[in-house]
């Protein structure tokens, strides 16, 4: 058959032609996209200004709709979407190709070995495949990405590769079983071809053409998975900084957008401006459709019974072109330092410092905030990481990173959103620990309980260095979002260098006039063991008893009991030393304790500090509960205070 004949065959296969053109176009975008991008993909504008023909100016707040200047509009930070799509193609496609090849490798090796050898191994593989296939791909990928986070980009790629292989391995296994029974295999075996060469020579040659189809299909599937992960906020965000002897000298290959990252947080803006934000999704789908078309075309071209089949030689050329293109795009991945995790406080500080130095030279870093709202739609990263810089005129510059993503910078002058008093704050040094340790500690110390009872919350992890302290500290503040009468919970403070708990910032730092009985902290274990008591705890603005939060807060003459399931009731309270001191029970039971209702409290006012025994009843059970109440102006942490010399410890014993 002539070359012309072959060409005609190729042309009559529109899926293959379109798929090939599309794939090569994607490759071209990947390689040259960054060069032809009309704008800097990271240049963000808080206002899109346009000169109209009549000489006037139009101002628009991003995200904006497509127009002649920005063909595909701008994203929420005013960055040109088309430029970002072009520049981001390289990294995205590299990740996708590497993951797809890895996935194919897993599926192929398991499929061939289980098909060829069978037996127990095949059974184990098929059970494993059934297990992996039972959980939806996206769900499994989310869990894997979170679990492999410490491994960085390799973990992210492994997560993409470790889902979706069962289909490949099952398909390959079936093909191997089919090929194994073919006469030529039997002939080869009968003339004494060894098993390994049977696999590498004959079997792979039989299964090979289908493999290319599967590879194209998988590439499209991995791309979609990447996009879906990006949509839920899991993505590779990349910036490489060359660190030499003289410190960071700026981005090398850095600030690379990625398609998944462009989709991240999309839903957050999609409500106000959906069209511009959905455009990256459209590109992803187009690219994935291209791979699907390619797979369809390849299937027809390699099928010996199809009218569109091509000669093995032509197919070989096609294979080499595609494999070369794919390898080439995978090469692009080398040298990029990308990380799937959120930025740490220090990472962001380095970036923010550069920005602050350009805008307000000489300003100093005074506060860092990581925000976690309840309605967040991104997984496992702060919704915003904010850095406050203060200049000589006591003015504040706010530099925020959306989703703790190093590429989504937002700069605002004279604006604070975190209710921080900047007066008297010292400048923060470099190299402080990140926000996750204080957050974890705060969660253990009452934060988790707070979030359980207050579904619409905002958690802020605030890093400052108050003037009266020796070291910078982290405070974690849990506050209700809106429509709630619940007081904020402030878990303070954690040393920002060591992560250790240091004394409360709220309380004046004075030695308590009495020692703290260690027994008060142990009381919570009594509470926990009582059946059905888990839902209740007694807490005050600073005193909470019954949960772990009383590790941090002791004090106040006020006790609140939070509503929960059942009918908890404050019965009485007696002072251990002074029997004449009478507690004033303001309201004995939480007024509303149906699930889902706004919180309410039972309130008890204690006239004197000291050791109190409180009786709490639930149904027929009555629990004696001994706690130590401090005056409200002194809220020390009992763990931190040694016995004061010369003061006799109070005989405070749990009953």
């Amino acid at each position: 058959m002539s070359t012309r004949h072959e060409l005609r065959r190729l042309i009559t296969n529109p899926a293959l032609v379109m798929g090939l053109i599309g794939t090569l176009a994607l490759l071209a975008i990947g390689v040259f996209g960054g060069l032809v991008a009309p704008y800097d993909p990271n240049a963000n504008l808080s206002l899109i200004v346009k000169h109209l023909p009549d000489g006037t100016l139009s101002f628009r707040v991003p995200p904006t709709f497509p127009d002649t200047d920005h063909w595909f509009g701008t994203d929420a930070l005013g960055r040109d979407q088309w430029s970002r799509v072009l520049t981001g193609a390289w990294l995205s496609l590299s990740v996708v190709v590497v993951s797809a090849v890895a996935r194919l490798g897993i599926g192929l090796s398991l499929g061939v070995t289980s098909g060829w050898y069978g037996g127990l191994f095949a059974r184990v593989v098929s059970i494993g495949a059934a297990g992996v296939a039972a959980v939806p791909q996206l769900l499994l990928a989310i869990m894997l990405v979170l679990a492999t986070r410490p491994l960085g980009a390799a973990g992210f790629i492994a997560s993409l590769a470790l889902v979706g292989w069962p289909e490949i391995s099952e398909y390959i296994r079936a093909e191997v079983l089919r090929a194994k029974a073919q006469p030529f295999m039997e002939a080869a075996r009968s003339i004494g071809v060894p098993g390994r060469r049977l696999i590498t020579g004959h079997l792979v040659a039989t299964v090979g053409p289908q493999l290319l189809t599967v590879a194209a299909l998988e590439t499209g599937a991995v791309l979609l998975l990447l996009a879906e992960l990006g949509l839920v906020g899991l993505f590779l965000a990349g910036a490489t900084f060359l660190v030499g002897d003289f410190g960071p000298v700026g981005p090398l290959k850095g600030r690379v957008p990625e398609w998944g990252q462009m989709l991240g947080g999309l839903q957050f803006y999609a409500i106000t401006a959906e069209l511009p934000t959905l455009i990256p999704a459209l590109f992803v789908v187009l690219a994935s459709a291209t791979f699907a078309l390619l797979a369809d075309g390849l299937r027809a071209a390699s099928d010996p019974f199809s009218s569109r089949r091509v000669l093995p030689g032509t197919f070989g050329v096609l294979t080499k072109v595609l494999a070369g293109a794919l390898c080439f795009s995978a090469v692009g991945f080398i040298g990029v330092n990308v990380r799937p995790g959120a930025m740490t406080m220090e990472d962001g500080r380095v970036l923010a410092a550069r920005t602050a130095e350009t805008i307000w030279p000489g300003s100093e870093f005074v506060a860092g905030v990581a925000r976690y709202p309840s309605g967040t739609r991104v997984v496992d990263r702060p919704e915003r990481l904010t850095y406050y810089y203060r200049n000589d005129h006591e003015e504040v510059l706010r530099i925020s990173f959306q989703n703790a993503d190093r590429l989504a910078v937002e700069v605002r002058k004279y604006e604070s959103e975190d209710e921080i008093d900047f007066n008297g704050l010292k400048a923060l040094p470099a190299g402080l620990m990140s926000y996750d340790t204080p957050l974890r500690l705060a969660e253990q110390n009452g934060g988790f309980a707070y979030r359980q009872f207050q579904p619409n919350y905002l958690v802020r992890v605030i890093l400052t260095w108050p003037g009266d302290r020796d070291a910078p500290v982290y405070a974690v503040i849990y506050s209700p979002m809106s429509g709630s009468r619940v007081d904020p919970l402030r878990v303070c403070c954690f040393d920002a260098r060591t992560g250790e708990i240091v004394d409360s910032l709220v309380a004046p730092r004075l030695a308590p006039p009495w020692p703290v009985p260690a027994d008060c902290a142990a009381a919570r274990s009594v509470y926990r063991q009582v059946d059905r008591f888990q839902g209740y705890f007694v807490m005050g603005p600073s005193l909470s008893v019954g949960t772990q939060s009383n590790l941090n807060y002791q004090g106040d003459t006020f006790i609140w009991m939070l509503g929960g399931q059942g009918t908890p009731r404050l019965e009485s309270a007696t002072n251990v030393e002074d029997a004449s001191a009478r507690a004033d029970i303001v309201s004995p039971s939480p007024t509303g304790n149906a699930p889902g209702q706004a919180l309410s409290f039972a309130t008890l006012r204690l006239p004197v500090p000291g050791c109190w025994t409180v009786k709490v009843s639930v149904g027929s059970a009555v629990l004696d509960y001994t706690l130590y109440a401090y005056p409200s102006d002194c809220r020390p942490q009992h763990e931190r205070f040694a016995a004061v010399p010369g003061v006799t410890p109070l005989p405070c014993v749990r009953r």
Partner: protein
Amino acid sequence: MVSFLADPAHIETGELRANSLLMNTSQLFRREANPFGAAVGSSAILMLTSIAGAIAVGVPAGIAYGWSTSRALRALAWSVSTLASSLPAFFWAVAIELVMIWLWVQFRIQVLPTAGFGIDEHLVLPSLALGIRPAAYIFRLTATAVEEIRHADYVRTAIAKGLSERALLARHVLPNASPNIIAATVFAARGALSSLVIVEFVFIWGGAGLTFVQALGNRRLELASALALAFAVGSALLALAADLVRTRVRVGT
């Protein structure tokens, strides 16, 4: 159904300014006494609606295709079903959302809400996005089965004996095609289950998929793992159903 009702007092304000024309804000963020049950229940509603819709569209269309003699119509139907089944649910969700937005932006026409939960018009778009692929799948398998049966000898005999079309359909074609239709439905449901997460996410439908993502975001790992397990169990049950159907079909023929 009371537990599905939203509590308007708990809408997030501030940065999340919802376009009240496009959706019912009071149903965006819900607060549940039993988040697991509510999420799985909401997902079940969405799944059932979309699969029911897919059957309602796919089966009659498949029968009509198998019965029709118009070549142009058949080619058109087959192309549409190819398109529908080859594009992912992610695409359909995004595309449907885009169309709704475009209608709103260009013509100020508000057709259906694009986000939120409700057993009313809120259900339409998510089930459409989730149901397109199953519908195409059911259509294709039904069409193939009906076409095959139509050319079978016993059907030709029945036609020759003068059986009316309706009787033919009811007595011969449908009973014989039903195993294939049931198998197609089960397979389509499995496919829909794996697309559920992303469809719920795009349309902010408070089902198991969206709750799973939010639970991870809010570090409520026990809820997230329970939901992942629910997905695995659902998928395994559907796989079991598929196996049962397959056995039945083999025994029947």
